[in-house]
């Protein structure tokens, strides 16, 4: 059973969102997603200042099995992306909710997180998907 921290918001395409104290949000992919993809060998993160629409493909995660798009769960402007992933993509496998974060955004409008799944909702979705 994969790890689903209770303080984050989720999407059905397996991204997570963490509200930061300064009002920005941090985005990554879930433990389930990293485990399904397998060992990651290349990660492409969005450049700072890029404007993302909700649902827009914003990052690419590539494992030896497959390359997948990561979709931005919210709309906003990229303030910074994780610089360590370029040389150490394995961080995302080892610590998907911590050191393996992908990007941080300034939200274009408040209240966007309300439409996302909470931990219980995402865990239930994973359950249904696996049966």
């Amino acid at each position, binding site marked *: 059973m994969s790890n689903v921290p209770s303080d984050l918001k989720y999407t059905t395409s397996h991204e997570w969102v963490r509200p930061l104290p300064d009002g920005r949000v941090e985005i990554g992919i879930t433990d389930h997603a990293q485990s399904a993809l397998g*060992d990651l*060998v290349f990660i492409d993160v969005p450049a700072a200042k890029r404007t993302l629409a909700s649902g827009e493909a914003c990052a690419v995660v590539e494992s030896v099995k497959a390359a997948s798009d990561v979709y931005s769960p919210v709309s906003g402007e990229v303030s910074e992306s994780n610089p360590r992933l370029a040389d150490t*993509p*394995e961080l995302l496998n080892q610590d998907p909710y911590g050191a393996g974060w992908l990007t941080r955004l300034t939200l274009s409008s408040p209240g966007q997180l309300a439409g996302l799944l909470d931990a219980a909702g995402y865990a239930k979705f994973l359950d249904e998907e696996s049966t």
Partner: protein
Amino acid sequence: MNELKAREPVIFDLSQPGRNAAAQMVASVPGDAQIPQSLRRGSPPLLPQVSELQAVRHFTRLSQLNFSIDTHFYPLGSCTMKYNPKACNSLAMLPEFLGRHPLGPETHGQGFLACMYELQDMLKEVTGMQAVSLTPMAGAQGEFAGVAMIRAYHRAQGDLARNEIIVPEAAHGTNPATATMCGCKVREVPCDANGDVDIDALKAAVGPQTAGIMLTNPSTLGVFERKILQVRQIVQDAGGLLYYDGANLNAILGKVRPGDMGFDVIHMNLHKTFSTPHGGGGPGSGAVGVSKRLAPFMPIPVVYKEGGRYRWAAEADLPQSIGRLSGFMGNAGVNLRAYVYMRMLGREGMVRVAEFAALNANYLLARLRDAGYDPAYPERRASHEFIITLKRQNREYQITAMDVAKRLLDHGFHAPTTYFPLLVPECLLIEPTETEAKEDLDGFVEAMIDILREAEHDPEKLRTAPHTMPLRRLDDVRAARQLDLTWKPAA
């Protein structure tokens, strides 16, 4: 034996300064003196220096390591390479073909042009399209030609707003790439649980921005798209054109025709369905077939027949053409092989290809299901290929699709495609093709039964496979993370 082979060095490691095969050296190169000094290289190329026999042994030993269609059952199927009948190769190598210069006058190449004309005709017949151009050099270029024609058509109608290509998620992975290369936006449409296009999602996706749809049929899920006529209606009503990805044509050859399904363009991988050699990088051949309304936009040249003579048709004949994609007739030698293959099969033979390809796939599917493997789409009949998912075995025994694939090598079978399509977890995509005998299919099933038993009782054996190959399990993660490149960026 395999241990020894594993130690076969790189030929450069055999190299000794000054050693060569004198008998093989060219004494002098005709025309050499005419190359201006400024264009000649200053130092000899860095080639291995070995004796003739060293070279012969080295490459013979390497060839013995091959896992190929000529040595093993190869469930990658037409997607990678079908069996290539040897006659296709011999006939395409006739000296009259090899000696023909592409810039020679048409009067000197009537035989070759006749073959290309008849190949165009046969492909028209088997796909139900109105015209065919053989000039795309590979499947990717065929796709490019197809979408470029769709764009050119809308432009010629003065309809500049249509820049979106719809791609179902079960389409070939190259389709979205092609649409993007042609300057279109990609709109993805999901599939339902049985592998058909989600009709409601398609209805919601079409509009005045729709340039067309790219549909792979049978899809990469190994099933025939049953709602194809509905899909056609929805896209046509929205003013879009229909593109048929012919990558899986092997399943429907002579049975149903994309032209009859109302499609505007199809690309055919002659190197897949029509059995020309490829794998290892080509060359391929990506002929395109078109409907009447797209015929004026075909890539050139094509071959016309007038008054019993054959000639190239180019700009003057097709002024709206999207242009040239290759200098002459695409990969002429590959086209010739496909021509011989089709002539050998004839009309009845083509139907047999599809029937036996589907029969073999469904036989394997049924036997593997009986053996305890899970089909990804249990409700569906296979086309020429099918998918099994090892999701359950992965949960129960902690083994992966890759472990099974690697263990198959120990049983003397080439591994099938793994982890594709991405929609199905822990999957193996198996395509036996029409040429396998029942005994060979049964041998594959026996190996799969052994492997499943091993997964239950000795899963570690799978996780560490292969055990009998010259090299054991390679660390593909490390290989991808720490690239061993000889290229260095300019300082």
